[in-house]
């Protein structure tokens, strides 16, 4: 929803062609269809700006040409001779042939129009999808550090709104420049071949119209942006006020908020009014100037000495009155294109900024040569991974100067589980980020099976990792699809097997369509715990050597916590596991527990020893316990303290 209202950003008032050059490349690739488009435009310009005015002038002057004979009634209408002067060449043809010719040219015009619209649309579609594909591909390649700094809303806006408006401007505006130019050229040729003197009069007023149009376009662009911003603000305010409905009621501040609403809508109204006032004067001003030019032609006309032949001169007059609009329209259109370009320039800049971003975390060339890149894994060269993990003097900082992990030494033996606890900012999530190679250590090294993981590819490491994140993520698709996401070539049987092993098969078959139940909206029909169970299966179907539970139980409701715990215990068997938890109940069963604080390990042991030590772990545990609601307090106390015979 929010994406419907595009952020405006700062928009420059100068057209910068160097920005557009990148975008023009996308048109260049489509040159065959561009040629078709140009031919169609050429024909349309000829028909509209040359053939039609010339032939209607010929119809009018026909009565003069054949005046004498017509009155006598000697010439049947079909044989009346017309003399249109097209592009400077005078033709002579009878009315009969004129009819056939006009009708045929008109049909061809329709075909040309179809070609014109369709190729324009085709170009628009091509550019739009190419831009989106390129941007999407780049998003897949980018490193985590990029996503930390870039909100996803920004990326979606680039992919959606910017790609759409750029392709629209490129196809409709930029290419239309040719169309307008051609119709101008045809009009000018037709005009000058008819009467160069009248043509000069028409042209004399064009600088004036040009200035007027440009001033208006600039003003309209400026004020409509102001009005749009006011409206976007209103939409944001409205969303907040709807969400804050309960607060408004309990605070009884309806009147205050109502007044605020009135102020904001009034502001929108004023700004819209200003914009519409300006644009309201635009067309009448242009039309008036056109009429002024017409009046000028009529005024000067009798003094041009073309009076000898009254009907020819009348035809000429009609012709030139039409030319006025034929000259004025292109100027308006040029101005529109100009403001389209201005309005879209920021989009071009932003989108290409994304497309041209260089990923910061990439494998070394020799590693890529052996193991393949992110998109093309050479799995045949992958060494098997056992799961022995060592952190050797690892330090890390997201931003230069602010170190969040200090000289961390850690050995997780193959097949054991290690849990890390600590407060927000203690460095536990960073440890996961480093192990998954979402980031790389700034100092020190991480060894997997005694090999620095930088000497193997990202694909090699990740194809051996089963990862479960805090908020269970459900992709749009069936339950089966969601599990298969962990290993794309897994068979249905393998999926069922894994679910049975994790004891979640029974829950899945109670769903409406079992494994084929279609999940939408992030799986809203499931509870948080059920979603997490599915993401467990997704991680386990990979049969990973390393399992990472990254706050995997933090958002679980108490009802499913028991099932989750059971599944976790089964997952850990035979794997090297790293468990990060904010909720301490998840980690009480781990082989080893580390407590981290400010980037260093402060305590090391297991639940029982650490609780009895009454140190930092004990404090963390009891503090957290007090935040639980009463039901949880009762059940957790029993399971984690009474049943484990811990003395506190």
């Amino acid at each position, binding site marked *: 929803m929010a994406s419907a209202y595009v952020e405006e950003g700062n928009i420059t008032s100068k057209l910068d062609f160097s920005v557009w050059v990148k975008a023009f490349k996308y048109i260049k690739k489509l040159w065959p269809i561009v040629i078709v488009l140009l031919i169609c435009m050429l024909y349309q310009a000829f028909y509209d700006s040359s053939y039609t005015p010339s032939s209607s002038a010929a119809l009018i002057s026909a009565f003069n040409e054949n005046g004498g004979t017509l009155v006598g009634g000697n010439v049947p209408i079909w044989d009346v001779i017309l003399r249109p002067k097209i592009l400077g060449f005078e033709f002579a043809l009878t009315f009969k042939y004129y009819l056939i010719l006009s009708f045929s040219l008109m049909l061809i015009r329709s075909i040309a129009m179809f070609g014109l619209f369709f190729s324009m649309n085709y170009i628009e579609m091509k550019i739009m999808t190419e831009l989106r594909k390129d941007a999407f591909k780049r998003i897949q390649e980018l490193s985590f550090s990029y996503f930390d700094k870039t909100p996803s809303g920004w990326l979606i806006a680039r992919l959606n709104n910017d790609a759409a408006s750029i392709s629209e401007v490129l196809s409709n505006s930029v290419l239309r420049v040719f169309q307008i130019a051609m119709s101008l050229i045809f009009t000018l040729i037709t005009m000058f071949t008819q009467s160069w003197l009248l043509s000069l009069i028409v042209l004399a007023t064009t600088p004036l119209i040009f200035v007027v149009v440009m001033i208006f376009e600039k003003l309209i662009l400026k004020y409509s942006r102001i009005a749009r911003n006011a409206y976007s603000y209103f939409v944001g305010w409205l969303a907040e006020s709807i969400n804050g409905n309960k607060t408004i009621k309990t*605070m009884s501040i309806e009147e205050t908020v109502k007044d605020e609403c009135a102020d904001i809508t009034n502001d929108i109204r004023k700004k819209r009014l200003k914009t519409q006032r300006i644009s309201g*004067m635009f067309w009448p001003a242009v039309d008036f100037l056109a009429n002024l030019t017409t009046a000028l032609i*009529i005024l000067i006309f009798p003094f041009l000495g073309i009076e000898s032949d009254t009907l020819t001169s009348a035809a000429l*007059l009609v012709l030139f009155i039409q030319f006025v609009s034929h000259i004025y329209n292109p100027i308006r259109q040029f101005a529109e294109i100009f403001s389209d370009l201005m309005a879209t320039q920021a989009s071009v800049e932003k989108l290409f900024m994304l497309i041209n971003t260089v990923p910061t975390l990439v494998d070394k060339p020799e590693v890529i040569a052996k193991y393949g890149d992110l998109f093309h894994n050479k799995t045949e060269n992958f060494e098997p991974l056992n799961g022995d993990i060592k952190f050797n003097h690892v330090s890390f900082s997201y931003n230069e100067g602010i170190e969040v992990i200090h000289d961390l030494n850690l050995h997780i033996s193959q097949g054991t589980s290690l849990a890390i606890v600590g407060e927000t900012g203690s460095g536990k999530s960073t440890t996961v980020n480093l192990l998954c190679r979402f980031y790389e250590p700034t100092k020190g090294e991480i060894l997997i099976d005694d090999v620095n993981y930088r000497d193997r590819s990202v694909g090699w490491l990740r194809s051996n990792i089963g990862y479960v994140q805090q908020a269970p993520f459900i992709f749009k698709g069936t339950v089966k699809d969601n599990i298969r996401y962990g290993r794309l070539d897994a068979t249905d049987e393998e999926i069922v097997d894994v679910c049975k092993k994790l004891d979640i098969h029974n829950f899945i078959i109670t769903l409406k369509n079992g494994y084929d139940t279609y999940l939408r909206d992030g799986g809203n029909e499931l509870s948080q715990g059920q979603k997490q169970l599915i993401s467990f299966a997704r991680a386990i179907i990979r049969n990973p050597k390393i399992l990472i539970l990254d706050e995997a139980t933090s958002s679980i409701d108490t009802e499913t916590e028991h099932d989750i715990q059971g599944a976790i215990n089964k997952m850990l068997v035979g794997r090297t596991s790293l468990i990060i938890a904010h909720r301490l109940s998840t980690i009480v069963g781990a082989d080893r527990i580390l407590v981290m604080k400010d980037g260093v390990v402060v305590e090391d042991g297991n639940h029982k020893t650490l609780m009895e030590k009454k140190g930092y772990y004990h404090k963390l545990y009891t503090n957290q316990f007090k935040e639980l609601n009463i039901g949880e*307090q009762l059940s957790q106390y029993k399971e984690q303290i009474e049943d484990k015979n811990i003395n506190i």
Partner: protein
Amino acid sequence: MSKISKAKNIMMKGVKFRYYFYFFLLFIALFFYVLGTYTTKALIDAINLEPYENMDILEKLFFDAFGGYELLTSNTWIFSIIILVFAVLSEGLNAYRFIYRAYTSTMMGQNLQNALFYKVERLSYSTVKSMKNGDILQTCTRDEDVFRRFLTDHMYSIFYSIFIVLLSLIILFISSWEIALVTMALMPIMFVYSFFLIKEVRRRYRKTDDSEGEMTSKVEENLAAVRIVKAFNNETYEIHDFDNYIADYKKKFLHWRKMSAFFFASSDIFIFGQILLTTVVGFYLTYQHAINPSIGITVGTMVIAFNFADLIVWPIRDLATILSNVARAYAAVERINLILDEPMEDIYSGEKPEIKGKIEFNNVSFSFPDDPIKHALDNISFKIEPGQTVAIMGKTGSGKSTLAYLLNRLYDYSSGEIKIDGHDIRTIQKAWLRKNIALILQEPFLFSKTVRENLIIGKKDATEEDIKKATKISQIHNSIQKFQKGYDTPVGERGTTLSGGQKQRVAIARSLILNSPILIFDDSLSAVDTETDYNIRQELKNRDTKSTTLIITHRIATAKDADLIVVLNNGKIEAIGKHEDLVEKDGMYQRIYKIQTKME
């Protein structure tokens, strides 16, 4: 039409006359515009020295009005003056009507925006909960926009088309009924053709739009799942999957645009066919006239027949386009009515007794409207004297918050009676009641304003002293002062400078400023740490005004000092009494007490 009239009347408040008068302005402006075009005919006939007696009644009138036949035929420059006069009149009127219309339509927008929001704001709590916030927002923004455009832009376009066709035809009819009929000949067919073809174009457009929506949600999904995608090394799969969405979109986009290109190209046949037909028949009639001046049309008529044909064909195609899209406006107004037809919560009628803070619950039961069988609260009775503190404890779902909501009438109880200072709360004005009961919600909600603006939102005339007092009690004053902009720091959804605990403490201070005789903490003290919780409660005790305080909590330490503790279980009172009594009794309170004191 009755569907439309309600929303329409709301929009037109204060601009009704302007709205309709605009149609008149439009007609007059078009009248001069058409006359300006008509001048060409007189000019041609004047140049051509068409005899006066061959002219139709309107043309004769024209010549008479502007100085007579002799003068005009020998001084054609006068026509430039006439054209200029008509141009000034019609363009001046045009500019005027555009500005006039801008005033009307922006006013109409504001009227509906306000009306919708006022209604939304005053829907009862249960109604709001039953609606989706996103839907409400869509109606207040997009539907409002669609409907306003229909009433203004589209209505005016419809009448523009009707007027221009009408005026052009009248003028042509006066000259010659044959040419008038011919100029209209293809228009009905084109209208019907366009009307139905456009519907198909729209149908395909909607499919394309849906496909684009799917594609967007794919991107959103990909970005939301970025950790999963990367951890599972599924980048290639994602690109292929995205390609499928792109391919579907491409297909539907082309399918749609093929049809729209076909629509424009094929209806151009009617348009240019009409112009050609008018030209040919016009030529024929002029030919007849040249042979026999008593029949047919003059050259001037032929010329304006071209012009008028060109003038009316385009609006007719637009008309078909607009009319084929009326369903959209109807759908929008239906959604608007859905909100407008909801009853408003009555918060301003009832008594405004002085409230000291004595609260009585007598056999109160309550069920939620969507689950009338289950009692969310069952036969609750207790009494609180002014200035006392009551703690309410219980598991999740035991009805603690519901009890608070009943007290300030977000919901009304089903049976029994709640009295405040002896008054049944259903007789008390809701706004008054809520002003006197400061309910601090579990989830703090701050508005996108500065800290100060948020603090005084319930009491605009709060002094700096009032603010400081409240923020000191809620233990947030020092934190606020540490912010770079202090009390002027922006907060809320768009400015996430405050942590959850800080937001909660600002929300507490915001309610304390009200100095209400009754204060309810709906689990809102639990969000702050135990120490802050304790400090806040101590400060509250030292306050000049002793409010009756209800604290919903899961902390024994918090409940311990209360004058009364109510333990709820499944909507019923499991135990009630003072701390000393409850710890002696077997039950949940005792067990929790034992655990929590061990953990201390």
